[in-house]
């Protein structure tokens, strides 16, 4: 049976708000990356970055849609009691939950993999094998949710290491913020791996995720500001 709800009751809906902030940041950067690609079509990395961020943003949309339905059903059950009608309604929606959560997971993993690909060698054979393994790990994450978070964590560690190297090379403030944002997102996934142990870990992970995406937004604002500042010099 797929596990769906990890949030404590009092946190229902708050995680949706956090995910909406994440979507906003991801889509904003993706839109600008597409705009820059249109200015410099030779550099396909802009397109990869945009595609990666769009996939992760879409994955959050699936998570929200699924969570929203789950929370709605949970609240309804609590209020009305276990009458047959309510039970049937929840049961018939199970398939939507499962598909929603699987899409959330596969889109997140694919998004992270594309981001990882920007900084690593692109070999067609390897790409096919890894995409296959991502699909397999998503399938098995139905019964063991942590497989998804561990896989995400691995990608995020490599991406964060790359941003650490970039920062080490440039020592620029925007690079520092980017490193910090991915470090926080990585830590949030580390917490997500253990959410079954205590529901409070889910809350902590969500807040770290929020901090990570806030740092990503600051990175983006700094990029725009630094670009303008250098123009005035």
């Amino acid at each position, binding site marked *: 049976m797929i596990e769906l709800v990890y949030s404590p009751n009092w946190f229902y809906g708050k995680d949706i708000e956090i995910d909406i902030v994440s979507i906003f940041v991801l889509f904003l950067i993706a839109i600008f990356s597409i705009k*820059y690609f249109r200015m410099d079509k030779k550099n396909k*990395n*802009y397109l990869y*970055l945009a595609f990666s961020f769009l996939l992760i943003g879409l994955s959050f949309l699936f998570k929200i849609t699924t969570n929203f339905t789950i929370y709605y059903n949970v609240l309804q059950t609590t209020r009305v009691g276990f009458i047959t009608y309510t039970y049937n309604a929840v049961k018939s929606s199970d398939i939507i939950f499962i598909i929603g959560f699987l899409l959330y997971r596969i889109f997140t993993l694919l998004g992270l993999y594309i981001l990882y690909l920007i900084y690593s060698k692109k070999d067609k054979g390897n790409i096919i094998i890894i995409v296959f393994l991502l699909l397999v790990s998503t399938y098995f994450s139905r019964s063991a949710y942590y497989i998804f978070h561990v896989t995400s964590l691995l990608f995020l560690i490599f991406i964060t290491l790359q*941003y650490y190297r970039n920062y080490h090379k440039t020592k*620029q403030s*925007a*690079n520092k913020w980017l490193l910090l944002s991915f470090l926080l997102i990585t830590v949030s996934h580390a917490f997500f791996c253990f959410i079954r142990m205590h529901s409070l870990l889910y809350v902590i992970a969500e807040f770290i995720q929020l901090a990570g995406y806030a740092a990503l937004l600051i990175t983006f604002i700094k*990029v725009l500001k630094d*670009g303008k500042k250098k123009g005035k010099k």
Partner: protein
Amino acid sequence: MAKKRERSDIFLDMLLSIQERGGKIKPTHLMYRANLAHNQMNKYLDELIDGNFIKRISVKNYNYLIITDVGLKFIERMREMKEFERTFGL
């Protein structure tokens, strides 16, 4: 060996050269400042004029090139883009 400049880099260098001279420059000065051969410069100049990034004007029988608002906006966008590229390591 120095990396070959991309077309967009050359456009940016030409526009920056004009901007640094207060928005107005003589074509020969632009050629030296943007580090271009005569033929190359004319080719890129035509493209920049066609795109309305710069304009040709004549003052006391001297030809000048002036940067337009579109050109200034382009510089801003290119700088943002380069900063974005550098930050994300693209």
